[in-house]
Each structure stands twice: as C-alpha cells, then as structure tokens.
C-alpha cells in the first residue's frame, strides 16, 4: 500500500530536523520518512513535539538545522509550492468570526485557486460531508459551538483535496457523530491516495486505520514500530 510519491520521493522526509520555539528545542533532531498513502500516528506526552512536527511539515515552522522535504520540495526554499497541497488541522479553526460558515469555506476554496463554479460545488459538497445542517451555513461562525466550528474548519480543508493531511488532535471538541465523520474523512482521504499524519491521544479511534505508530518524546523519535496499535485493518 505504501508506495512512492509521483516523482519517486517520499511524501515526507526529515533528516536531523531541529526546530526551536523561542530558545527551546521543540524538535531536537528528528529523522522520519513517510511514504505515499501511509497513515502515521504520532504519539507521545504533552510537549513531546508532535504539534511542532506537524507545523514543520506544513512549512509553518522553519527548521533550525537538518533537512525537511515534503512532496518532493525543500520546505525552506519552496514552501509555497507545497502548501496548497497540504492541509493542516491545528488547534485553531482558521475561520473568520464575522463571516458565515458558507462564506468562510467558499473563501478558502477560492483562495486555494479554484474557480467560482468549483468553489460553489465543492463548498456545498464539503459542508454536507461534514454533517453541517442547512440552517448553520448562513450563521456567523462566532455563533457556533466549538464542535460546529471544528466541522466547518475541516470542511474548509476538505475542499482543497490535499495530498497530505496533517491532523493535530482531530477529534477534539467533537461529539460522537463528529468523531465518526472525522474517521470517515481520514478513511476517504487514504482511499483516494492521500497520506495522513495524525497526532492523537485517542489511540483506539486511530487504530481502526491500521496506522504506523511513531512515538516522540523530548523532540526526537524514540520508537517507530510500524502498524501495531489495536491490530486494526487499514482503510
């Protein structure tokens, strides 16, 4: 299942990656290779460096040393070539409070370079996929619950159909049906050939995807055991 990315290079390749948050080395020399179509579960205690690793792969954190290549591009020199093909779901939603759900998702769809017609089609489809009711679409984001905002945030990423998903605690703030939607979303993405790096403390949920488990502690990879959690089958 795990193949090579189009031009024959891994989707993510980190070599001795060091990243600082202020003066603190959040990543202290990470080596990690992720092949196309893999689901990688990042686990580790709070402060281990999982979020920084995901942000590094998104090009939002600059490596202090080492090399970082994503989708075959050097992230220091070619960030813009990579970013439109990567989706990062972080702790924040990336939504404008005063715009409606529909306006937010459509804006991000257009910002991703899609035409107005495509934006309308994909926005409708993504909002439906995320289980957001018709009534919510015209509401300003600041009137939504945390879970509804999370769903809208995911919809804004789904429309871009990225090749690499970076998910930081994707089940946070979501109720049971929302968590099921996220699981389905990840399954669909993998089935479509995307690669997923997910940081989650909810190991049972991610186990169903049969991920390769990578444990991080103190800013370095301490264990890379392959598909081991719960013995679930890959989607």
């Amino acid at each position: 299942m795990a193949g090579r990315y189009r031009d024959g290079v891994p989707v993510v390749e980190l070599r001795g990656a060091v990243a600082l948050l202020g003066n603190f080395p959040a990543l202290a020399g990470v080596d990690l290779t992720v092949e196309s179509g893999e689901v990688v579960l990042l686990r580790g205690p709070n402060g281990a460096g999982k979020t920084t690793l995901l942000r590094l792969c998104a090009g939002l954190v600059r490596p202090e040393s080492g090399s970082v290549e994503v989708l075959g591009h050097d992230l220091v020199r070619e960030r813009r070539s990579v970013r439109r093909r990567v989706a990062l779901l972080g702790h924040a939603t990336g939504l404008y409070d005063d715009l409606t759900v529909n306006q937010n998702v459509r804006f991000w769809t257009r910002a991703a370079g899609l035409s107005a017609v495509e934006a309308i089609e994909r926005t409708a489809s993504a909002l439906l996929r995320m289980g957001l009711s018709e009534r919510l679409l015209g509401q300003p984001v600041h009137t939504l619950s945390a879970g509804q905002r999370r769903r809208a945030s995911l919809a804004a990423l789904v429309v871009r159909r990225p090749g690499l998903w970076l998910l930081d605690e994707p089940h946070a703030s979501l109720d049971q049906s929302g968590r099921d939607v996220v699981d389905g979303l990840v399954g669909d993405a993998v089935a479509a050939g995307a690669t997923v790096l997910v940081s989650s403390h909810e190991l049972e949920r991610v186990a169903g995807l049969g991920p390769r488990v990578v444990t991080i502690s103190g800013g370095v990879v301490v264990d890379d055991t392959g598909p081991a959690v719960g013995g679930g089958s890959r989607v």
Partner: protein
Amino acid sequence: MSEVRRFLGDAGLVAARDLRIEFRSRVVVGQVVPFALLVLVLFGFALDADHRTLRMFASGLFWVAVLLSALLAVHRSAALELSDGTLDALRMSGLPPAALFLGKATAVFVQLMLLEVVLLGGLLVLYGVQVVDPMLLLVSGLLAGVAVAAAGTLYGALASGLGVRETLLPILLLPVLAPVLIGATRAFDDALGSVAVDGWAWTGLLAVAALIATVVGALVHGVLIED
C-alpha cells in the same frame, strides 16, 4: 496575462472578504466614522473659534482626524489575521503575499474613502468651508487615501508580527505618514481656498508617497507575515 488576472483576482478576493467582514461587523460605520466626526467636533470646541478661524485650519484638522481614525481601521484590518489561526490558514492557502497586501490595502482604502466623504460633509456643515477646486480635492484625497491605506497595511502587518500591535502601531505609523499629512493638508488648503499654495505640486508628492508605500508594501509583506 493570465498570471496577472489570477493575481488581481486573488487581491480582489481578499478585498471582498475584508469588506464583507466590515459590512457584517460594522466597525468602521459604527465606531471609526463616529470617532472621526467626534474628533472634528472636539477640535471646534478646543479652538473655541468662529467659522473664519476654523476654515483656516480646516484642512489640517481634517487630515489629523483622518489619520487618527485610519489607525483604528488599520488595526482592525491587521487584527482579522490574528484571530483563531487565520494567518496560518492564509499562509497555507498559497495566496501570493503581494496579492494579500493589495487586497487588504484596497479594503482599507475603500473604508478611508467613506471616512473622507463623511468628514468632508462635516467640514462643510460644521466649519462652513467651501470647495473651490473639486478636482484637486478629489485627486489629492484619493492619492492620500492610497498612501495611508498602503502604509497602514504594511505597518499593521509589521506591528502584528512584533506582537505589540495595539500600542506600537501609532508610534510606528504616524511618523511615516507625516509627509502625507503635510502634502494632503497643503493640497486641501488650495482646494478649499484657505491658503494660497500650489496644491497640484503637493499632490505630486502624494502620488510619490502612494507609489512608494504600495510598491514597498507589496514587496515586503511576504517577509512580514512569514517571519
């Protein structure tokens, strides 16, 4: 050609978004414009002047009111990109930083034009001024608006990046806008017939300031939002 169209489309997308947010939140209409009018009225009280004195200083008071109010609009514009991860989302979107800059500056410019129109009405009603050269008034008002919007957007991004936007922005921005204040005041002096100066020469200075602020802003905005 298609690259240029795409670039302008991206800038238009950002401008439309900022204006839509402003339309929904009504911060400029409900807070910035009343603030500007209040400044104009308070100047009148402070000077305790008859209409002749107010007319003499009307241009300077107008542009001080515009600049103080512009600080609020610029701060609001910069703050949009600091809420709930929107700046990270913009970086991830792949929008060209120059298009982002031009879009945001355009939205601020539109708001400043609204502000200028309302304040001009205030000058006509409260200070009893008369417009003797409408074309000069229009051109200098537009060019000064471009310069303030472009410099404001640039320094708004700079102050946001430094994390001290609310307190530092006026200190950073107002000295930079001093030439615009002087040029716009002189041009308006001529347009309103209050002082005999060559308003069109000062309008040339405004054009240079607008051009420099726009070009520099478009070139360095990427660095400011990335680092």
